[in-house]
């Protein structure tokens, strides 16, 4: 007796619950009928990586995926194993640096983004990972001049310096005279012989101060550094590819890299530029905006309205 009575109440309760659940579902957000799947996006422990991870993540969310974020996860030594073990599905990488990480510093990277990416993929393949199409946006060593110097000599690329190098002073970290990507590379690849070299730092406070008081004309900086614009510095194009191709590139698990995910990320990557990185980095590092808001604004500009 008792048990029959109980089970009928249980059925009634269950029916009520189902009704409430479906009612809630129909009054909810609406558009995505069901998530296309869940992806975990990670980022390195610096602001630019958080911005890029947010851009990838929000674009995929816009396409109907459910995204978990693991931002500021750590260095590549932490992030790469997490990807291999499947704890994360993708992270925004840099072609040359990631290649030299996965090949254990074999020195295979060069200035060609496509060749570097192909090499990178040959190392990722056996690990069940893949790198997508590299973006034109790069975060790499670059040589900058002040806008005054740029106008005075009408400069746009590094090869423009070959003729006038004898009048200019180069500033960079003290290791620059012995590093192939720095002074010797500028001499060998571009034939630039500077009047003098001033040992400073790599895109740090000394280099800024030296640009400011005019004691250097050309300085080593990072191409996507957020305060290049506000400092009145212009990066000269590396037209002969002296620097390794550290183009922004999504690195992900093959299992997660469906045709749809790949096409969403490749479309984003194609639109991203180094100038965008400079602007967004300055919004986060200097104006202290949140990476997710900066990423959302970029996506809105490019017609990904969430």
């Amino acid at each position, binding site marked *: 007796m008792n048990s029959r009575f109980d089970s009928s109440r249980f059925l009634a309760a269950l029916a009520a619950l189902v009704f409430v659940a479906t009612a809630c579902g129909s009054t909810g957000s609406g558009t995505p009928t069901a998530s296309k799947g869940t992806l975990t996006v990670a980022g390195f422990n610096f602001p630019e990586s958080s911005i890029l991870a947010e851009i990838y993540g929000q674009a995929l969310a816009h396409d109907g995926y459910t995204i978990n974020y693991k931002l500021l996860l750590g260095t590549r030594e932490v992030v790469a194993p997490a990807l291999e073990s499947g704890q994360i599905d993708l992270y925004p990488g840099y072609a040359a640096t990631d290649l030299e990480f996965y090949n254990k510093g074999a020195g295979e990277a060069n200035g060609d983004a496509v060749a570097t990416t192909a090499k990178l993929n040959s190392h990722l393949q056996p690990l069940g990972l893949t790198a997508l199409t590299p973006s034109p946006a790069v975060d790499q060593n670059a040589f900058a001049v002040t806008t005054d110097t740029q106008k005075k000599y009408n400069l746009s690329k590094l090869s423009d310096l070959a003729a006038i190098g004898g009048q200019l002073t180069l500033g960079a*970290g*003290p*290791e620059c*005279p*012995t590093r192939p990507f720095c002074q010797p590379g500028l001499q060998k690849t571009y034939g630039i012989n500077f009047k*003098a070299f*001033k*040992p*400073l730092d790599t895109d740090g*406070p*000394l280099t800024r*101060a*030296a640009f*400011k*008081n005019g*004691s250097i004309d050309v300085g080593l900086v990072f191409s996507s550094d957020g305060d290049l614009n506000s400092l009145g510095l212009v990066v000269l194009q590396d037209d002969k590819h002296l620097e390794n191709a550290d183009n922004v590139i999504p690195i992900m698990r093959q299992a997660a890299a469906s045709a749809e995910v790949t096409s969403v990320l490749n479309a984003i990557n194609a639109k991203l530029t180094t100038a965008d990185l400079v602007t967004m980095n300055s919004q986060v590092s200097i104006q202290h905006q949140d990476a997710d808001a900066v990423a959302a604004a970029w996506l809105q500009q490019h017609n990904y309205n969430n």
Partner: protein
Amino acid sequence: MTHLANVVQWFADPAHWRGSDGIPNRLVEHIQISAEAVAIGALIALPIGIALGHYGRFGNLAINISNVGRALPSFGLLVIAFQVFGLGNLPVLVALVALAIPPMVTNSYVGLREVDPDVKEAARGMGYRELAQLVRVELPLAVPLVMAGIRTSAVQVVATATLAALIAGGGFGRYVIDGFAQQDYTKLFAGAVLVAALAMATELSLSGVEWLLVPRGIRLLQARAANRAATFKTA
């Protein structure tokens, strides 16, 4: 041992003896900034120490303040001065002057305090005015201690001027900083040897200056005292 041979070879290389990164130019830079710092430091510290020692007032206060100065890390001061003054020699000078002042204040104060009150009274009795008494009687007697203060300052400043290279300055510190950045440990070691040699040379040459400045009578007095001490010891 091969490391030492490399350093010897480094010094033998004529390329390291010419140009803006050559040893002669770096030596001039190093001496220049050090000399400026010690000179400015002396202009500030000696009048204070001498006046306080002469009048015998506020001595503890001055010594305590200058001892706090000793506790200031030069590197920290250099970084702060760089933020304020930007690139150039000025921030280095600020840090080095701050380092140079304390030993000179303390030593000149003590030097003047230690002058025998009987001698001061005798000078007064002979009709010396206060300034004459200070310049002709007290200062000569205080020279050994005042000079010891200058010597201590100068050696510390020469050793510390190495830091200038951290904010793109010159001097022997260039070899140390650049050698480290370039993983050229021969250059680094050669730089350290040069700094040490210059510090020792500073000590020796200032001892010579001190010998010249100490009045002959006091020198004889000291010599006799030393002999006497030796006699007592052997006796």
